[in-house]
């Protein structure tokens, strides 16, 4: 058995196991830790799939930045605030299982039927990676995909501004008048909490 197959068969089950762990544990911190492990196993997959640059990015951005952000918010809101018992809607968990299995089955059928028809470029992967993976990636990114790259910069501006607008409000930007407006706020007025209202995804908040 070649080495990369061994690595795949070690890390793929580990990855699926941590993913399942993440979606079943009740404690939010445990879920976040499962997710970190999952991100690492996925980074290893990138290495196996000829993407060493993404391997590094995955660890720095996902396992580093994004997970720290998650843990920060979980800690900020209180560690003990895990998943509440019970279901959001009656039978939701069953529906979720059925849907998940259906997706796997559908994809498996498509993969079995559809692989191998696509034309491949001649030569090995090294042929399209002259001068190493990051350099080849930059070549494609800044020539063929320079425009999506610029759109991403706009996206990040919107995201940064949005997060600031949403989070800034409590300081001096909230006038006394606005606080009073909040005081009279009441969920029922919006019908958002109306129990049994058609189409409500959420359960009534007490």
């Amino acid at each position, binding site marked *: 058995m070649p080495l990369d197959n061994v690595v795949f068969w070690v890390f793929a089950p580990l990855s*699926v196991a941590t993913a399942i762990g*993440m979606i079943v544990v009740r404690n939010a911190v445990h879920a976040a830790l499962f997710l970190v492990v999952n991100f690492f196993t996925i980074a290893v997959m990138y290495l196996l*799939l000829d993407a060493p640059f993404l391997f590094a990015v995955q660890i720095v951005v996902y396992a580093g930045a994004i997970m720290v952000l998650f843990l920060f918010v979980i800690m900020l809101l209180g560690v003990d605030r895990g998943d*509440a018992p019970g279901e959001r809607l009656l039978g939701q968990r069953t529906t979720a299982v059925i849907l998940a299995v259906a997706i796997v089955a559908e994809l498996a059928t498509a993969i079995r039927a559809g692989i191998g028809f696509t034309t491949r470029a001649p030569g090995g992967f090294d042929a399209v990676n002259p001068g190493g993976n990051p350099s080849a990636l930059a070549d494609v990114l800044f020539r063929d995909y320079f425009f999506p790259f610029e759109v991403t910069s706009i*996206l990040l501006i919107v995201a940064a501004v*949005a997060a600031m607008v949403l989070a800034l*409000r409590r300081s001096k930007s909230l006038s006394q008048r606005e606080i009073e407006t909040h005081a009279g706020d009441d969920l029922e007025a919006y019908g958002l909490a109306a129990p049994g209202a058609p189409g409500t995804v*959420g359960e009534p908040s007490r």
Partner: protein
Amino acid sequence: MIRLPLVLMFSALLFSAGVYGVLARRNAVMVLMAIELMLNAVNVNLVAFSSSLHQMSGQVFALFIIAVAAAEVGIGLAIVILLFRTRESINVDEVNLLKW
């Protein structure tokens, strides 16, 4: 070389684990984590195709998706914190923000 269908099945499993997580969890932060799992599954898919097609563009897409995922998490967590504050400001013992 790992066979492509194997990797695609692996990514399909991760994706549907994420779908289950989104539908079954009540805690907004956990739902967001499940969405991240789905995005990672898509990335594995793209990189696998890129490797088997001998093309770089799949890896470039994965890079874009990582950037977008970071932006989404930023906004999502900002909304979670705003929700927390809005509810807290009304009645502290009514805070059950992480359900939606």
